[in-house]
């Protein structure tokens, strides 16, 4: 177990810089999720922590060591890959025992540790099978088992659930969380799925274009996004973005600035009775909730999330929107949040 410290980490391929200086401090036992769209550099960052990519500048500390120049095996980490990366010619047992054999752990202890991990992950009936004889979820568990048996200081996960179907993904998400809690190991988890990020993270690092846009606890990031990008990326449907200020008694916004409102912070009222009116384009009833899509008078598209049992407004009608002005966020032309 260990804390991790990233100090102005940069990465360049030739002249192209892909990670532009990331700082983060991760405390012992914390579950950190790095989330961002594809190509934002999140996997590269994880691979730099793992030692699979070199660090162009900056320092990575794991525990009390600077690991920049250490080989992956010297960093006391374990990693779960997106495609699991199981050794196809080895049985489940051998897959999990491989790292221990290399570390010259005594045979009896290898047996005990693999058996313990197999019990925890419900893999006991499959220890003699080869990876190709397992289902996706079982392979995923073997990959986890391989990480667990080595008792590393840090777990690294590189989109471990993206090859699973939706139902299994939800189940494995819970298992990963439970396992990490139980073992108390520091975990760094990369995903592009903001639901995974919200549910798993103690704190999350939202990345975009090689920069950490915001680091914080999921609900805090959700409620107080630091940038327009974070506001749009975290939350589904994303935050509504309007090009003109609808708050009462305010003048025009600075050029390029926008305001944002979460879909659930809007209530439907009679036309003219709210801050603004909306022409309803269509509704998406999802059961527990309904999404009302429409266009404002100024031409901005907007989504409202309402309770599933409220009667749906008909397509093409005009409705009023009531919004608590305190819930309205303002972002400047560069996308930074402005406190007002």
């Amino acid at each position, binding site marked *: 177990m260990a804390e991790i410290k990233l100090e102005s980490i940069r990465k360049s391929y030739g002249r192209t810089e892909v990670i532009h200086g990331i700082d983060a401090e991760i405390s012992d036992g914390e579950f950190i999720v790095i989330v961002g769209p594809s190509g934002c550099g999140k996997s590269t960052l994880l691979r730099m922590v*793992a*030692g*699979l990519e070199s660090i162009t500048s900056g320092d990575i500390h794991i525990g009390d060591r600077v690991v920049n120049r250490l*080989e*992956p*095996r010297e960093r006391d*980490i*374990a*990693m779960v*890959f*997106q*495609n699991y*990366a*199981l*050794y*196809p*010619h080895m049985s489940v047992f051998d897959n999990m025992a*491989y*790292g221990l054999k*290399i*570390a010259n752990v005594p045979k009896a202890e290898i047996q005990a540790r693999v058996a313990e991990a197999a019990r925890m992950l419900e893999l006991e009936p499959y220890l003699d099978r*080869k990876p*190709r004889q397992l289902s996706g979820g079982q392979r995923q568990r073997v990959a986890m088992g*391989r990480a667990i048996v*080595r008792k590393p200081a840090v777990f690294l996960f590189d989109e471990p659930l993206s090859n699973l179907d939706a139902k299994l993904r939800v189940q494995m998400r819970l298992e990963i969380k439970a396992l990490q809690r139980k073992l108390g190991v520091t975990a760094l988890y990369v995903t592009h799925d903001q639901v995974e990020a919200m549910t798993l993270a103690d704190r999350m690092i939202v990345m975009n274009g090689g920069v950490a846009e915001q680091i914080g606890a999921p609900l805090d990031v959700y409620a107080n996004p630091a940038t327009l990008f974070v506001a749009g990326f975290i939350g589904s449907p994303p935050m509504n973005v309007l090009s003109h200020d609808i708050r009462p008694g305010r003048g025009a916004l600075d050029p390029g600035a926008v305001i944002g409102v979460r879909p659930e912070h809007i209530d439907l009222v009679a036309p003219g009775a709210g801050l603004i009116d909306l022409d309803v384009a269509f509704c998406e009833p999802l059961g527990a909730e309904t999404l009302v899509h429409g266009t404002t008078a100024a031409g901005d598209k907007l989504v409202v999330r309402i309770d599933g049992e409220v009667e749906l407004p008909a397509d093409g009608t005009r409705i009023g929107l009531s919004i608590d002005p305190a819930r309205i966020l303002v972002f400047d032309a560069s996308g930074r949040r402005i406190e007002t």
Partner: protein
Amino acid sequence: MEKRVVFDNRWLPYLLVAPQLLVTFVFFFWPAGQAIYQSAFIPDPFGLKTQFVGLGNFEYLFGNRYYRESFLTTAVFSVLVTVSAMSFALWLAVLADRVIKGSSAYRTLLIWPYAVAPAIAGVLWLFMFNPFTGIIAWMLAQLGYTWNHTLDGGQAMALVVAASAWKQISYNFLFFLAGLQAIPKSVIEAAAIDGASFWRRFWTIVFPLLSPTTFFLLVVNIIYAFFDTFGVIHTITKGGPEQSTTILVYKVFSDGFVGQDLGSSAAQSVILLGLVGVLTVVQFRFIERRVHY
């Protein structure tokens, strides 16, 4: 999933396989049948009559010291060619797999020797090792080592092995490189994180995952060493000195077409045919089983 086509016309499937069957029949079954037939006869010295001798040709062959020695020569030769051609090619492929810049130029250059005909490859090596004018023979002489493969059977063997292996390395290299590149990078990375050093990864992960390629090349290389090296041996040593490089296929040629003993030559062809058949079956039965994971 199995994919089968059902033909409405009864004769169409036969028509479709006919060209392949025809080629196999004309160039394999017919000559093989002829060899089996002729192996039971000996022709008279003028080639006017043949006399049926049953298994007499075979009896004579197995009682013949030179023929028995040729077996040993073939075994030594094909093991040396196969092992050196494959291990050297694997080494080159592992190195080439790590090259990023200019890898395509590098690969193309390594593939060139495959385009050289066996006889020409033989002549190239002969020029370099000619005891009187060859540059490498001269260099060896400067180092105090006398090179004369026309007198020294061991040196002759070394030379034909080197020339034969050299030609086959390109082919093996291509397959090994493709095999290496087909191994998922993340598996290697997982092994690195698990603590395996480069060599440990190579022997415990890469080499086992490469085994289908290795097995395929083993079969191909042994068959190459048995048959396709004829041109190399014919140009460099002609089987000499004192039959020290006369492998079985070369003896078929020299007894049949130089010695004009067609019956014996045919019998040798039959033995060779059986031998390669048995070797291939053994390889598939006992080795192939262990390479699939």
